[in-house]
Each structure stands twice: as structure tokens, then as C-alpha cells.
């Protein structure tokens, strides 16, 4: 799709749905934070200042400061990079691997389907978050391992989706026509079927992003994965939670709100993305 057509369709999709537009704008802001975080942050996210600890929101510190006197706004902005980065990487990997395995299973059936199915069943047999925890513990606390863990637990979701989407289309007229037209099985799958299942899968991916962010944040919340003092929304919520009772609500509220906002916007974007990518809506 050329860029002009993409831009035109984008305008069309967003024009139809204001909420999607709003979501996209907010996500763009978050993406900016992710890309330019350190330059945008008013303070150094790591600098501690014992004197200013747990200061409520003010003009100097719009989000207040945390237990070590660090500016929460700066930390929230900088954390965007890590949270969004981990989620996007994990979802992208899950998407690609799930798409590949699911398509092959859905098209060829037989043993391919059985083996892929059993692997996915094994993953899904575990409560997914517990499985993620187990993977991170086994592989070690690091950002990479959070990504791997999140990728693995999300895999069945994409794999099943791709499998049934391909299965439904496998016997359609245009697939038979593609075989008549000289395409071998893999070509049929790649060139003829997959382009048609990408739009619904991307919608799923967008909805899944919210879950992936929560997953990564959740792992950090319980102390696995990202370690302090690295700014990351999950850790910040965890650290701030202990101060709720004493009334210092800003320590967990702002990172929590950032999480909610990010998840909400990805969900909202899901529909808009489908309209954007559906060939039937192209003008």
C-alpha cells in the first residue's frame, strides 16, 4: 500500500471514530516519551534527594516525589520507554512466531497441527502469569527475560487465531484459484492467505498490547524482572503502594494511571486499526 493511500485511509478511519483518534494521539504522546524520555524529563529520574522525599504534587514536581525524593513525573516519562518497549517487543515476537506456527498448522493440518496444538496446550495448561513468573525465575531477572516470558505466554493466543483464520480460508474459491494458478502450498499460504488474516490479527495484537504491558509491569511489581532503581511503571506502583495508607497517594497513582492510560488507548486503537487495514473499507 503506498504511503499516500495509507495516509488517506488513516484519515478516513480516524475521521469516522473520534475515540480512536484520541487514543492514537495519547499513544503518540506516550511513544514520544518512550523515544525522547530522558530529554523530556525535567529532572534526572535517578537522582535522589532525601530532603524532598514524598513531597505532594506541586508546580515544581507536578506528580510529586517518591520515597527517595525522585521526581515522579520524570520517572513516569522515562519509564514509558521500558514498559512500551518490552510490551511491543514481546507482542511483535509472539505475533510473528504465532502467525507462522498457526498458519502452518491451519493449512497443512495432520501432524503439523497436532504437534503445534500440543505445544500450545502445554503452555496454556499453566496459569499464564505463574508460567511467566516461572520463566523469569528460571532464566534470570532481566528485561530480555521478561520479554521472552511475555512472548511465550502470549503465543497460544496468536497461534490459535492464525490457525483458525487460515483454516476457514483454506477451502475458499480464491485459494483453489491460486493453486490452479501455479502456486505451491507455501506460496498460497504466504501470498494469498496471510495478507487476508493480517488485519484481524493486528487488531488482536493491539488489544493484546494492553495485556502485555500489564504482564510486564506485573512481573516487576512482584519483584521479578526489572530491578530498582530502574524507572518502570510496575516497580513504581509497587513501591508507591506501601504509602497509600499514610496518605501519600501520588506515589502509586501516577504510574498506575500511566499504565491504565496505555492499556486503554491500545484497546481503543484496536478497532481503528482494523478499519485501516481492512481491504473492504479501502476506497
Amino acid at each position, binding site marked *: 500500500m503506498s504511503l499516500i493511500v495509507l495516509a488517506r485511509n488513516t484519515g478516513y478511519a480516524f475521521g469516522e471514530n473520534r475515540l480512536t483518534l484520541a487514543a492514537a494521539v495519547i499513544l503518540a504522546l506516550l511513544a514520544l516519551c518512550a523515544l525522547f524520555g530522558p530529554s523530556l524529563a525535567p529532572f534526572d529520574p535517578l537522582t535522589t534527594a532525601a530532603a524532598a522525599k514524598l513531597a505532594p504534587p506541586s508546580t515544581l514536581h507536578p506528580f510529586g516525589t517518591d520515597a527517595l525524593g525522585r521526581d515522579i513525573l520524570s520517572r513516569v516519562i522515562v519509564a514509558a520507554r521500558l514498559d512500551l518497549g518490552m510490551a511491543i517487543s514481546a507482542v511483535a515476537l509472539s505475533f510473528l512466531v504465532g502467525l507462522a506456527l498457526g498458519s502452518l498448522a491451519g493449512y497443512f493440518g495432520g501432524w503439523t497441527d497436532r504437534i503445534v496444538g500440543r505445544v500450545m496446550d502445554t503452555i496454556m495448561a499453566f496459569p499464564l502469569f505463574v508460567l511467566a513468573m516461572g520463566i523469569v525465575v528460571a532464566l534470570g531477572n532481566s528485561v530480555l527475560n521478561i520479554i521472552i516470558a511475555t512472548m511465550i505466554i502470549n503465543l497460544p493466543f496468536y497461534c490459535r487465531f492464525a490457525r483458525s483464520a487460515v483454516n476457514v480460508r483454506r477451502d475458499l474459491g480464491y485459494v483453489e*484459484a*491460486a493453486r490452479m494458478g501455479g502456486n505451491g502450498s507455501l506460496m498460497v499460504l504466504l501470498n494469498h492467505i496471510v495478507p487476508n488474516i493480517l488485519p484481524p490479527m493486528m487488531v488482536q495484537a493491539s488489544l493484546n498490547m494492553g495485556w502485555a504491558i500489564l504482564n510486564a509491569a506485573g512481573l516487576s511489581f512482584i519483584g521479578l524482572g526489572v530491578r530498582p532503581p530502574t524507572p518502570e511503571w510496575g516497580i513504581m506502583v509497587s513501591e508507591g503502594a506501601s504509602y497509600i495508607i499514610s496518605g501519600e497517594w501520588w506515589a502509586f497513582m501516577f504510574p498506575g494511571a500511566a499504565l491504565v492510560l496505555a492499556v486503554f488507548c491500545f484497546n481503543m486503537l484496536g478497532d481503528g486499526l482494523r478499519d485501516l487495514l481492512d481491504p473492504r473499507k479501502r476506497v
Partner: protein
Amino acid sequence: MAPLLEARSLTKFYPIKRAARGAKLHAVDNVDLMIGAGESVGLVGESGCGKSTIVRLLGRLIDPTAGQILLDGEDITAMSQARFVSTPGRRRIQVVFQDATESLNPSFRAFQSIADPLKRLLGLRKGGEIAKRVRSTAALVGLPQELLQRYPHQLSGGQRARVGIARAIAVEPSLLILDEPTSALDVSVQAVILRLLADLRDRLAMSYLFVSHDLNVVRLLCSRVVVMYLGKIVEIAPAETLFTGPRHPYTQALVAAIPDPARRGEARPRLDGSPTSPIDPDPNACRFYGRCPKSADLCAEAMPPLRAVGPDHFAACHFALSPVGGNP
């Protein structure tokens, strides 16, 4: 003169998983069929008769359980259908699918749909060459050039039908199998497409296998008609003869069922009931036994062979002696 396509003892059985061990669905059972060069053969029959399976077998989309298909004398069933894709025979047999079943890829523009077989089967690489072929094929089927950039959902039924036909004839096949190509179209558009098909056949010297449930349409386009019932051929005849003097009781019932305004209010014999099961049918009984108005003891004891009952006219019935009924 050797026929273009010859099917010998073509058989396709599907194993039934849940039923008794070894139970098989007899989709196509020992069919012998010939299509000559430049000939238009119609294939009719009701749902479950096996005509869709024949389309897939002759189109080499599936492999037969038994039997052979010879294209210009060469056995194209000697290799699996996956291998057949890379032989030169693949481009000689093409299928035009029923428009309604999404026979066009929704994410391909019309141009791409027509260009794809050119790239794969004819190995064309250069963009310019491909574009030239696509445009000339589009012109041949009466598809305006500007519609080539459209997606299927932006085209009308008639336009989609033309793209489907263009895609099939772009590679210049010798045999075109048409599977209900006009059943999803309005009657006014159907007329145009049928005339187009007749023109193309004469201009490009193709043979047609025209599969349809609409007997009036088959009568218009085909010189010879094959009637199938429960996986077997029950009658073959020149088109006019089939409609005016059918010999097999099933064909007679079929022809009598065609709505005919000229026969308003006439009470005509009707064929009621449904076909018997295609799963492991009795090999020693006529498939039409029980439902046939003539059902006799002989019919339950011996499968009637397909034998000549007139010039170029074959019927598989023990009693196909004298003509009864039919539309004048």
C-alpha cells in the same frame, strides 16, 4: 481423433471417520468421460451427485482414489496434484469458479488476480510484459481498463465474473472448467456473460466443461450433456436430444422439473424424496433404485451399464429402450 481430455474409471472415495470401519463415501464412482478439442460439454446433476468432485478431479486440485486422467494422451494423474502444479500441463486446464464463493482474493486488486497465474504458470517476470498481457485479457473479456485497479468488493457481480474468467483464460488454457459461473448473477448480466463465454470459446478454440444446476443455461451453451447421479454417470447425449428425448428416468424427472411457463397448471410427474446414501452403496444395484418410478427387481440385482441407446446417446438404465417425456 484423440480427445483433449479423457477420464478413465475415475473414482474418488472419501473415508468416513466416525462410521463403521472402512466405510467410504463414494463421491465419484468409476466415471468415464471424454472431452474433445473445441467441444462444450455440460455436466448436470443435483447436489451430492459428484459434479463438484469431478470439477476438482479434472481440475487436478485433488488426487483420484483410482482411475486416470489423460490430457492429450498423457496421464496427468501419474503424479500427485502437488507435483502437477509445476508441470506444463497445469496451465492447460483452468477453472472458473462460482462467483459467490469468494473466488477472488479480497486483498488483491483485479490486476493482481489476473497477473498472478501469468507470473507463476508462464514465468513472466517483466512488469511491462505482464501488464500488457493483463490488459489484453481484460479487453478480451470486456472489462474496462480502469476497473483493473479495483478490489473485488468495489466491483459488481458481472464485473467480478469477468475478472474470474480473465484470470482463467490469461494463461491460454486448452480446457476451461466452469463451475456454476453465472448462478450468482442477475439474469440480465448472465446473458452477457454467457455470450462472452461462447465468443471466447470460439475465438480461443478452448474446450469447455460447463457445470451448472440451471438446465436452461446448459442447453444454451453446450453441445453435449452428461448427467450424474450419486457419483455415477447416468446419461450422456447431445444437448437437444437430452432435453427433447431423455432416456434415463432420472434425466426425465430432471427435465420435467424445469419451470416452464408454457406448461402452467399441468400436473407433471414429480420426483420426490432424496437420493439414497452415498456411503458404501450396494455395488449390485442401480443407484436410482427406490426413487425411480420404474424400480423393478432387476434394478436391485444388477448395476445397469452405460450403453448406447442412440447415436452418441448413452444411458445407464435397464429400461432405456423407448423415449418418454422431455421438453419439445
